[in-house]
């Protein structure tokens, strides 16, 4: 068994006097994809951001490669080579696509590899190569998502945090992005993925966590969770019918 790259224990964080996370325990092992699924407002994004100290955890520890990064400022956490493609993509809209990618390289330890890394992300997302001199704000939602992931990859990260990469995207684009995540993981990249799209996320993940109201209520391997009654009831079959939920139903019947 490989060692834990990211180890979160007893993490409590919130905004002002409103606690959002009530003692999160979670670990991501080197080389795996870990997924956190949960409904809107469960605290998934808060968890992703509190790794960077925003909001600052009021209790608990975050260890990265065994080092305590709980109290580091956001940029110092990033410099540990933890790259995030955050919720809402947050590309720099008034910079070109290329400049956005160059922003990603600040945390890269090996600056000589810039051209190779650039070639690599263009190979992964060819549409970015054709738009590299365009202002990022003019890209479509799917292209912006690709750019956000590509920007994170330019930093040669040890750990990639992906927050809702499928949010608001057409099913075809979603599949493209998940395929890219899978490819990256096969190259050895460790990924922590936060998703509402439970089916896609758990199919991809070797390890999954279910988050409800700021607590981890269930964890296990991706397939275990996909088959568990709670996950199927709450995240796959219930609620409004989404393409992925339909797919999951078909999968369940078959």
């Amino acid at each position, binding site marked *: 068994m490989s060692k834990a790259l990211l180890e979160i224990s007893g993490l409590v964080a919130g905004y002002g006097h409103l606690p959002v996370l009530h003692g999160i325990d979670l670990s991501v092992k080197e080389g795996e994809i870990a997924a956190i699924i949960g409904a809107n407002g469960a605290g998934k994004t808060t968890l992703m951001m509190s790794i*960077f100290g925003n909001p600052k955890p009021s209790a608990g520890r975050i260890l990265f490669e065994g080092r305590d990064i709980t109290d580091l400022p956001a*940029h110092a956490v990033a410099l540990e080579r933890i790259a995030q493609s955050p919720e809402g993509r947050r590309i720099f*809209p008034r910079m070109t696509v290329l400049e956005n990618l*160059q922003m990603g390289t*600040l945390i890269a330890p090996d600056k000589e590899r810039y051209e190779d890394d650039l070639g690599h992300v263009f190979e992964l997302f060819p549409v970015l190569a054709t738009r590299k001199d365009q202002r990022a704000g003019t890209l479509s939602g799917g292209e912006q998502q690709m750019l956000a992931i590509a920007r994170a990859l330019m930093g040669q990260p040890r750990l990639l945090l992906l927050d809702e990469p499928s949010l608001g995207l057409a099913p075809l684009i979603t599949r493209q992005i998940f395929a890219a995540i899978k490819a990256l993981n096969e190259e050895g990249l460790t990924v922590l993925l936060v998703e509402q799209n439970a089916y896609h996320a758990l199919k991809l993940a070797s390890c999954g966590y279910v988050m409800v109201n700021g607590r981890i209520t269930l964890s296990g391997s991706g397939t275990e969770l996909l088959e568990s009654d709670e996950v199927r009831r709450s995240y796959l079959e219930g609620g409004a019918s989404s393409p992925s939920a339909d797919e999951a139903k078909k999968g369940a019947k078959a």
Partner: protein
Amino acid sequence: MEYFLQQLINGIALGSIYGLIAIGYTMVYGIIGMINFAHGDVFMVGAFIALISFLGLMAVGVTFVPLALILVLVVAMLLTSAWGWTIERVAYRPLRSSFRLAPLITAIGMSIALQNFMQVAQGARVKPLQPVITGRFEMFAGDNFAVTLSNIQILIVVTTIVLMAVFWLIIDRTSLGRSLRACEQDRMMAALCGVNVDRTISLTFVMGAALAAVAGLLYLLYYGVIDFFIGFIVGIKAFTAAVLGGIGSLPGAMLGGLIIGLIETFWSAYFTIEYKDVAAFSMLALVLIFFPSGLLGRPEVEKV
């Protein structure tokens, strides 16, 4: 016609000074969304540091003008930058996560503090500097009016152009400039990319103050007199220039500076000198009616 040309030259020289100061307002606004009302007084401090350096150099017998100029420029930029850095560090940074009006009020307080400090430290009287750069040449003579271009005007415009070019290169082409723009567009995301946001904000104040110091030096050389109160009115004009050009926009600040300088000069030349400030501010009001975000500013809509 000759008279018009002469006023155009004067206006561009004055406008360049406003533009250099306006950059400081617009950069700070761009990056932390705050109006640094003390910036005009940083310009005033820069002018005083330049004056004191000149007097010091004369006392030790440096009489070679280009050398003296360069020394004064360097000293003024360094010391004024230190002021800018300190002001941000002690007065603004502790309030950064406070409510929006808090830094604004502190900035006004800082402005008053700087003025009073200089009044106490250097006295309230107007300080003269004997002309350092003299000489002018006649471009051409009309029937009863000769258009002249003074060396100091040439120095002002050339210095401004060079500084703007260097500055633009830094902002547009370097990794530092990219980080700065990143902080301006999304501070948290910039931090996630590994940008030390606090240091970048400090740097913004340092660069703004350095440009204000140059403006202070040029003002001193152009007018030959300064006092502790010049930062107020010149600062307000430069702020107006920044708003006119579109606050947050660097080319806008320069353009705004030139427009304010030209309006002021032409109004004084053709109408009444007493109403030159009214003219400049009226123009601001007019422009904002038709371009609410300034001439080169971008409207506050973001595609999400």
